[in-house]
């Protein structure tokens, strides 16, 4: 363990948020944002692996074209539950509710989030939603797909759609409360001297995310409420049988679900900004451009939803407007990628695990983003819409982007959260395995999609088998890449090296307190006097 470090060996602080008090009550009734973050971490990890299990079964089924492993109904449930669990119970809360919850108050130098009780409430609502989701699964699952398109979901399926809708509405409210808390905290709780221009980019991106959560999620809530009412009482709002318009459901659904894509990716972008600067020992290139591009993405993200509906029967004029606006959203994303790359220029780069994830993110997100432009391009979307091309695209953004960033962030702040280091060698290996497995899984799906394999197919024509086998093989590699961290993170809780306050030599207020931080975060109110990422004039930040 103890390698030759020149500085005195770091020690654990005597009193911190983890040993402040003990017992199940101290966790379940805590108002400490750090403990709530841990509660969230545990819950979403569960859903991540549950969703992953469904994904594994899907890939297993698709090994052969005949659809011989599961009944088609079972398969339909598998991909629906995979999508629902991953999107609503893992991706949406992932970075904001765990890393964001933990780090954001520290970053702005606050003692807690503005509304600690609401923060705890949001976790309970999430758990209630999770309970509904699990109850649905236990009682047979739903087979609507995560998109719940009417009239299939409202009138034709005999599964517990309404129950699942309630679960998702609850998960939605939990993210509304998280967003609300973040917005107020960033506005009202910043430490003295911490102006908007000095906020870490992670805070900016979480702020932008929160805006979307607050503005878009209620529309999902009302849409799914109407869907549930439609299903239970047949009120006729979305069902053509009673005079409703199924395309309206799609409009309202995507008004949330497109911005929700940015809920899922923006926090990841924030993490990457922190990682790239830290491991390049550099200020971020073009701070204000990166910061404002987050806001721009959040705002533009609301104007493009119907690019999911180009072939769904919307008017051609409308389709062109939405396509044009979709192009606009690509610009701020491109600006971010270029700025991150430029940040590394003339840096002093070390390839620690978080940095590996960050670099993986940039590459995969670039591909994911550019294929997104392909999908927003009208003439091409007609062909690739609802094929595996779409699947590949959003997994490049969601897994290659968000999950990679999440893993990077988790490694980066792990010492702050637990006070101990993760083991570097297996972590690097896991990062590599993830990267390779990911590309092997999803790159073939681009080709599959262009060849015309529609999504949500239980059986498929034989000529698609080669690519599907490749993809399934990749998935098994990917699974190892995700299980490995679970093992060594747990291991490190007990056996990891003591990290010290600032193992990375990073800037940012969260590194100026102890690891793990005390319950009230700072022993004295921090005062900010310089820009973020002031890696140039490094004063050696000692423990005390």
């Amino acid at each position, binding site marked *: 363990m103890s390698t030759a470090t020149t500085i005195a060996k770091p020690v654990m602080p005597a009193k911190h948020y983890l040993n402040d008090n003990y017992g199940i009550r101290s966790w379940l009734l805590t108002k400490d944002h750090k403990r709530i973050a841990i509660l969230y971490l545990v819950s979403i990890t569960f859903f991540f692996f549950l969703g992953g299990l469904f994904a594994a079964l899907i890939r297993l089924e698709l090994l052969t074209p005949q659809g011989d492993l599961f009944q088609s109904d079972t398969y339909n449930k598998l991909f629906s539950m995979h999508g629902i669990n991953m999107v609503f119970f893992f991706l949406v809360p992932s970075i904001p509710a765990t890393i964001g919850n933990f780090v954001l108050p520290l970053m702005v130098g606050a*003692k807690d989030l503005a509304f600690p009780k609401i923060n705890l409430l949001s976790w309970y609502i999430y758990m209630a939603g999770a309970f509904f989701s699990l109850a649905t699964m236990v009682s047979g699952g739903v087979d609507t797909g995560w998109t719940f398109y009417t009239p299939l979901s409202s009138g034709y399926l005999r599964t517990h759609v309404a129950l699942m809708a309630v679960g998702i509405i609850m998960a939605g409210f939990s993210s509304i409360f998280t967003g*609300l808390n973040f917005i107020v905290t960033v*506005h009202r709780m910043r430490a003295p001297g911490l102006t*908007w221009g000095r906020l870490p980019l992670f805070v900016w991106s979480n702020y932008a995310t929160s805006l979307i959560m607050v503005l878009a999620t209620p529309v999902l809530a*009302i849409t799914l409420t109407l869907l549930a009412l439609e299903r239970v009482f*047949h*009120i*006729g*709002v979305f069902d053509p049988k009673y005079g409703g318009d199924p395309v309206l459901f799609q409009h309202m659904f995507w008004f949330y679900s497109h911005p929700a894509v940015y809920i899922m990716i923006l926090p990841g972008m924030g993490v990457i900004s922190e990682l790239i600067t830290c491991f390049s020992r550099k200020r971020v290139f073009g701070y204000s451009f990166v910061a404002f591009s987050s806001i721009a993405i959040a705002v533009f993200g609301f104007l493009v939803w119907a690019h999911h509906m180009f072939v769904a029967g919307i008017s051609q004029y409308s389709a062109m407007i939405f396509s044009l606006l979709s192009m606009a959203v690509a610009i701020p994303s491109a600006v971010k990628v270029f700025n991150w790359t430029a940040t590394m220029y003339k840096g002093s780069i070390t390839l620690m695990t978080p940095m590996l994830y960050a670099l993986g993110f940039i590459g995969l997100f670039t591909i994911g983003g550019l294929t997104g432009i392909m999908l927003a391009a009208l003439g091409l979307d007609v062909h690739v819409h609802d094929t595996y091309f779409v699947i590949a695209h959003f997994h490049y953004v969601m897994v290659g982007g968000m999950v990679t960033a999440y893993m990077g962030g988790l490694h980066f702040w792990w010492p702050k959260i637990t006070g101990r280091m993760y083991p570097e060698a297996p972590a690097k290996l896991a990062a590599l395995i993830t990267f390779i497995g990911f590309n092997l899984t999803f790159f073939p799906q681009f080709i599959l999609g262009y060849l015309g394999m529609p999504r949500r197919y239980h059986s498929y024509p034989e000529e698609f088998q080669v690519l599907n086998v490749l993809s399934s093989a990749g998935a098994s590699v990917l699974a190892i890449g995700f299980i490995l961290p679970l093992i060594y993170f747990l291991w490190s809780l007990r056996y990891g090296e003591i990290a010290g306050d600032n193992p990375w030599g990073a800037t940012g207020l969260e590194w100026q307190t102890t690891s793990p931080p005390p319950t009230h975060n700072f022993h004295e109110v921090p005062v900010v006097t310089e820009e973020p990422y002031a890696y140039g004039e490094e004063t050696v930040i000692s423990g005390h």
Partner: protein
Amino acid sequence: MAINQTTTNQTTTTDHHPALAHHFDSMEQQQGASTFGMWVFLLTEIMMFGGLFTAYLVYRIKYYDAFVAGSTSISVSWGFTNTLVLIASSFTMAMSVWAAQQGRRKTQVRLLIATMILGVIFLGVKAKEYYDKFDECHIPGHVIGKGFNSWGGCDVNNPKLGNIAEEIQEKAKQAGATVPEVSAVQTAKQTEIFFSFYFAMTGLHAFHMIIGVGLLAWLTVRANRGEFGPAYYTPIELGGLYWHFVDIVWIYLFPLLYLISRHKHVA
């Protein structure tokens, strides 16, 4: 924001108000945060009702005649009364916030109770309206309402019970036009979707009202204990914001649901 001087002794400046939470530096900050938080919450409420309004607009354009017929069949005088009741309750609510700022405990409690009573009156009227609709079988949904029959009402044989098709013909006759029966029957059937929106929108609104009344009851108890005064009146202010928001929603619901093209059908 952006207080740039380095204030070091923030925790010891003022005497500690009992309502000040540990993670805030001052009552000012706490109040600012709470009020702003409430506004952000109202933002989500706007979007939630907004989704319904959008769907409503789409169908209003699509089934305009049916929306006119549906709208005509609900009682405009009850809606008008309820609007006045709600506006009055907003007024008393605003006044009770003022009373809290002035530190007048008694006035404050009385005004809160008045607001609550007005809220309950509103809900009572709403219940009466719902009952009427129920009586006339203007209940949407192929489960609860068993669907509209071809006349848009309970019973073809008893046209007095909210027979929309009959009403359409009647009103047209008064205006000097004739609407054939087949046509009236079709429109009557389509009013079902209007009633879906009528119940969804007023129902969601009434749900907010019920929560609001509960909130007011809690505030009244606290106000009666004398918790609010010039130094600390945030909860009552937040309750007020919520109540006024619910009022605003109704201000839009009233013309959208009750007043679609009333003139056509008045002699």
